């Protein structure tokens, strides 16, 4: 049993923590998310330079030989600063697909560009009526000569406005919701027939609706085996869940600390409100929820390499536990901040919003509770 991080991991954490503190302060972040671009490409370049974007990849593809624990460390620090840059879609999701199932040529083409920060990906999996089921697909990819033709509509594709490339799930066979017949494609976002509608999200990020209208892709756009990608998608999204749970832990830690600090500063009835036992116990419950969330996140992260069933169960366990904690901590943090908690000016409301949307990404609490039941 060892819950210690390596010296290298501690260094990475310290470095990122400093980067977020010094270059991602609140006003700079606000200006960036309100700008036309909505993110900071220069931060992305810096992350590439620091090796952060290459951390979870093996050395033979130009990475730094790390893994899921490194991604967890990165995302926890990003969560503390509500960093919007698309580490999960690009490094964890696209990188994950390439790592697990990419051909040598695909890795060659895309991985070094991801690691170098030159290529940003978004993961287009959700559909308007799919509700967290990766196999519930209306998007189709029909064989056409050597390649495929894609048609369909992908919903709320996080980070897509910043991306040059997309990982797209589509049905190559079978009926809607069949477990067989699901495939994943690497698609250049500038391909003919792609129409996007970009927008802000309520938690300060950007996303797109993406419409595929007879989009032709070559045969080598297919990643992994045709029609057999569902297990791969589940593996990659479990990795994304672990990473986003870490992000939520970072955000919850800050939201809790801000609340405790506010309760020290804010005086009513002649005393700091933190002196009231009613509020003390609620802040203790928030703290407990945070600590148990960290535990579930560790568990899910460590078990990503375990057997399929164990991996799925622990990923779902984390999404349930952290999802519940995120709601509790977000709501209580706002409540204890009183009126200030519902203003745009105070940072706490922005942590609350991020923690709210976290729950609907990669499956809700209810969805993962059901998945956990089905694996019991």
């Amino acid at each position, binding site marked *: 049993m060892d819950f210690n991080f390596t010296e290298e991991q501690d260094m990475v954490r310290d470095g990122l923590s400093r980067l977020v503190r010094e270059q991602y302060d609140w006003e700079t972040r606000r200006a960036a998310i309100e700008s036309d671009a909505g993110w900071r490409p220069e931060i992305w370049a810096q992350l590439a330079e620091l090796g952060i974007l290459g951390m979870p990849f093996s050395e033979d593809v130009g990475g730094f030989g790390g893994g899921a624990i490194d991604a967890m460390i990165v995302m926890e620090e990003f969560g503390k600063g509500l960093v919007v840059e698309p580490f999960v879609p690009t490094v964890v999701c696209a990188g994950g697909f390439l790592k697990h199932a990419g051909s040598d040529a695909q890795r060659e083409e895309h991985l070094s560009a991801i690691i170098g920060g030159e290529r940003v990906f978004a993961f287009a999996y959700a559909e308007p009526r799919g509700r967290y089921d990766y196999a519930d697909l209306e998007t189709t990819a029909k064989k056409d000569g050597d390649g495929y033709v894609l048609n369909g509509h992908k919903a709320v594709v996080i980070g897509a406005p910043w991306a040059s490339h997309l990982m797209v799930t589509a049905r190559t066979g079978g009926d*809607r*919701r069949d477990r067989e017949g699901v495939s994943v494609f690497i698609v250049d976002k500038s391909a003919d027939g792609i129409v996007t509608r970009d927008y802000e999200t309520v938690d300060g990020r950007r996303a797109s609706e993406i419409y595929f209208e007879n989009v032709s892709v070559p045969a080598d756009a297919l990643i992994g085996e045709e029609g057999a990608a569902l297990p791969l998608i589940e593996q990659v999204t479990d990795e994304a869940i672990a990473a986003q749970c870490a992000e939520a832990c970072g955000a919850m830690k800050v939201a809790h600390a801000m609340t405790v600090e506010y309760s020290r500063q804010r005086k*009513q009835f002649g005393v700091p409100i933190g002196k009231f036992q009613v509020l003390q116990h609620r802040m203790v419950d928030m703290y407990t929820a945070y600590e148990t969330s960290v535990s579930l996140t560790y568990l899910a992260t460590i078990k990503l390499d375990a057997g399929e069933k164990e991996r799925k169960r622990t990923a779902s366990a984390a999404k349930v536990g952290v999802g519940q904690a995120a709601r509790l901590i977000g709501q209580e943090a706002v409540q204890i901040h009183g*009126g200030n908690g519902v203003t745009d000016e105070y940072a706490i409301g922005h942590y609350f919003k991020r923690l709210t949307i976290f729950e609907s990404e990669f499956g*809700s609490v209810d969805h993962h509770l059901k998945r956990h039941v089905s694996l019991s």
Partner: protein
Amino acid sequence: MNLEFTPEEQAFRDEVRAFIEENYPKHLGDVGLREDLSREDFLAWHKVLGEKGWSVPAWPVEYGGTGWTPTQRYIWSEENARVNAIMPLPFGVSMVGPVIYTFGSEEQKARHLPGIRSGEVWWCQGYSEPGAGSDLASLKTTAVRDGDHYVINGQKTWTTLAQYADWGFFLCRTDPDAAKPQEGISFILVDMKSPGVEVKPIKLLDGGYEVNETWLTDVRVPVENLVGEENKGWTYAKFLLAHERSGIAGVARSKRGVEKLREIAANETLDGEPLIDDLDFARKVSQLEIDLAALEITELRTLAGEQAGKGPGPESSILKIKGTEIQQRLTELTLEAVGSYSAPYYGSIANDTGSNEYPIGPDYAHDSAATYFNMRKTSIYGGSNEIQRNIITKMILGL
């Protein structure tokens, strides 16, 4: 004990339903977030009701009330909630109006009550201050007597919709040396167009501007704008808060909200089936309906007590706590039902110049996150739910 409506009450329901169907301004539609409304939108129904004589049902008949029984008033609010009506705002009708007709001078009644009834005069509430929220009695805004005037200085906050207000009612400290902080406070009416009144909007986390900071700098107010006695303002403020609380339960609106939630959940799918048929989700909706039924009967019991001559007392705190918890739960479940499409910020989409050819998510998704964020205020405003529990602890449990 009898929960049935009498034939007369049924007839009353038919009458008001027909009136609403015929007269409710069609252009208001079924609005979501109130902050998207213009001043005219807020007042449209109020003005119709003013002409009909139905804008202030709960007031005594001599001041323009309808003389309806609490049951009739309950039917009235239910029928309005059916069409999600934009009701007259509470600041005049439920707050300062009752204070004026209960404690005000004849001149104040003659001057202010008609404008409240008709919807011509917009009121706002100047209670909270940056340093005085839950501990309202610690407020620092001062009113100093200078001849025939008070000179008011201070800063109020969370002044809801003050950007539209013609008049405001303010709690000001008139005796800084009083033995207890509650004893030196006065209730003063201020013309918002007076020199020295400045209203600055506060952006909320849903992106809207619903509340304001209100700064008062050497604002001169004639002494006849003092309501009741000097330094007795706390009594009137408490009276007003109890009135505010009973309206805050929002039972009729929540019932309409549950219906809407069911419609959304019938349209959303899970594994190809309507979400509302999913047992996990259906249980949550049922639990909400059970809580709402309990609240509804509790409110009716309170109304019946009122009818028997008991004013709204500390038990109205129950209505505030449960009512706001249910309103918030409703927005949580709506968010869950909507799923991924809760994430787009529709404020940014409404402003974009892009094509509407590609709509983003179903219509009911558009306000789901904003409403969820916005409704967190309900357990904070009108005396936070922590304060309501303190009131019950003290006034009912006697601890």
